[in-house]
């Protein structure tokens, strides 16, 4: 019986738990209410948005406050494309990927000379410029009224019901989420992390740092645009609020609350915050005040996020078992992110 080490047992337990969770999420329509299915769909879409954002933020160490630009762009592509024009759904997805990538590349090029808070301001300015267009180019976007009537059935193969729509969302989020996972483990993805850790050393090794910065924004923009398409479809609506900077702030909070240093961070963050919103909205109208408090308390007491906290606990537990101290290394990675040092 001593053949199984506690480490291996824990890893097995984690895998089993994840599998059970995955099955529960997929099988949710069999036991959850339609309201809960709606909430789960929102979590899934925001999780994808967060994963896309975290390529630039968590992995790349560049604090973007303009990711609503890509998200809103995707929304308007399906809004204008299917409601006002008559574009096929495949074309919508291709357009979202291409235009999201192009906009990402442009933002990447623009931010090449900026660091830290300047990246944040620049991305904010770009997103605000687009927001201004959405708000004022009434002929195309219907301005403040937004574009309503986006058909959910468009993205569902076969008969469109709440359940099939949910599964379609899950499938698309999983596919693009897996692509992000694959990208982050590829040599390019690893180089992006290396850029966060030390751009100068990466350059000294012969890497073209700027190419990886642009690459991070390009991939991130493309996937965020897809998330935007899904979000607009979920709401059957797209308006300037999809492009508003508060959306950019929210996705940043998803990553931070979950743990920006971890791949699954934005997923956990999106699940935690959307759940919190639903729960709080049940008994008060003051959700925004609670959200504001969440921003403050997270940064003061949990800057490494939920997964960072879990990781520290795990390390402390293991250190106690082995009878010696191991310095928590996850904290260092998050510190680099949330401190001044690592923001570049």
């Amino acid at each position: 019986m001593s053949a199984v080490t506690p480490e291996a047992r824990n890893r097995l337990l984690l895998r089993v738990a994840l599998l059970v969770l995955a099955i529960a999420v997929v099988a949710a329509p069999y036991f959850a209410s339609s309201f809960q299915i709606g909430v789960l769909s929102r979590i899934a879409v925001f999780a994808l948005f967060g994963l896309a954002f975290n390529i630039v933020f968590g992995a790349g160490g560049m604090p973007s406050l303009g990711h609503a630009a890509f998200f809103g762009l995707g929304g308007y592509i399906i809004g204008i494309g299917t409601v006002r024009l008559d574009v096929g759904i495949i074309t919508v997805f291709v357009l979202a990927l291409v235009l999201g990538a192009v906009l990402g590349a442009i933002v990447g090029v623009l931010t090449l000379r900026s660091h830290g808070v300047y990246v944040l301001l620049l991305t904010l300015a770009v997103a605000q410029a687009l927001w201004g267009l959405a708000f004022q180019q009434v002929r195309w976007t219907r301005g403040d009224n937004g574009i309503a009537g986006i058909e959910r059935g468009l993205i569902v193969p076969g008969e469109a019901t709440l359940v099939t729509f949910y599964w379609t969302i899950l499938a698309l989020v999983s596919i693009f989420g897996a692509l992000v996972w694959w990208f982050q483990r590829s040599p390019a993805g690893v180089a992006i992390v290396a850029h966060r850790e030390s751009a100068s050393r990466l350059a000294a090794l012969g890497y073209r740092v700027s190419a990886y910065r642009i690459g991070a924004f390009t991939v991130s923009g493309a996937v965020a645009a897809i998330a935007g398409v899904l979000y607009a479809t979920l709401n059957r609506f797209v308006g300037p609020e999809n492009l508003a900077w508060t959306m950019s702030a929210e996705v940043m909070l998803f990553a931070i609350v979950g743990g920006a240093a971890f791949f699954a961070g934005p997923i956990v963050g999106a699940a935690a915050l959307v759940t919190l919103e639903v729960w709080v909205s049940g008994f008060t109208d003051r959700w925004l005040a609670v959200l504001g408090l969440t921003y403050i308390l997270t940064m003061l007491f949990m800057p490494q996020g939920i997964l960072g906290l879990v990781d520290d606990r795990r390390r402390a537990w293991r250190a106690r078992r082995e009878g010696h101290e191991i310095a928590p290394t996850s904290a260092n990675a998050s510190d680099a992110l949330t401190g001044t040092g690592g923001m570049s």
Partner: protein
Amino acid sequence: MGSVLGHVLNGLSFGSVLFLLASGLTLTFGLMRTVNLAHGAFFALGGYIALDVLRRTDRYWFSLLVAIIAATVVGVLFERLALHRVLGKELPQIIITVGFAFLIADLLLAYYGGRPQSPPRPPGLDGVLRLENFAFPHFRLALIVLAVVVWLGLHLLITKTKVGAMVRASVDDEPIARSVGVKVPVIFVTVFGAGTALAAFAGVWGGAFTGLQPGSEWQILLLALVVVVVGGLGSVGGALIAALAVGLLDEFGKWLFPSFALFTLYAPVAVLLAIRPQGFFGKEELT
């Protein structure tokens, strides 16, 4: 010609409101490296409190004073309780100030409702300047004069006084400033408080100009951010020039090409930041 002059003066007076807000913003950035995104919330807080006190007491200058003091107290508490704990960490500071702004804005909405309202113009400045066929409110002229006065005051304070020297020392080299006996945390909280007071004042006077409603604090904050960025983070003089320029750009943009006005405001800012991140008058950053 009269209409152009009117638009110019309108733009300049709106730019003056932006400067009142941007000057506090740029001071805190220069000192604490904090892009204080809660600055717009203090603008709204000042405006609403002044309105509230005015309705209860009907004394204008008293309400203005109460609003400024109340907002400053809130700002100082916020700096000591939250912001100071993450000193030197840009991203946590930004997130915390955004959160604080959400909190304040939502509480204001809960308490005062979503109806647009605006504080009255200060008594004595109700009049209108008339030159032949051209008319312009005294109040707006006063705003322009005030902006220049505030700039001059801040400029002299920073460059000519001992307090200003201590502020500059804390900005340039905090450890050395501490070692020669400058109480840097006191400087921080004082400057933050002064910035908050300016924002609250801008809320009362600027609120009479722009009106107060939920979300307006973000619109004006983003414009003030544009000003600070264009002028160069940390530069008060740059902020004045940029504020007047942005005020004019905003006014003429809305007048001449209304459907592109927001785009033509933000897109050039993005390009400027890409080419010259430190703005026109900012110091070169050492990275």
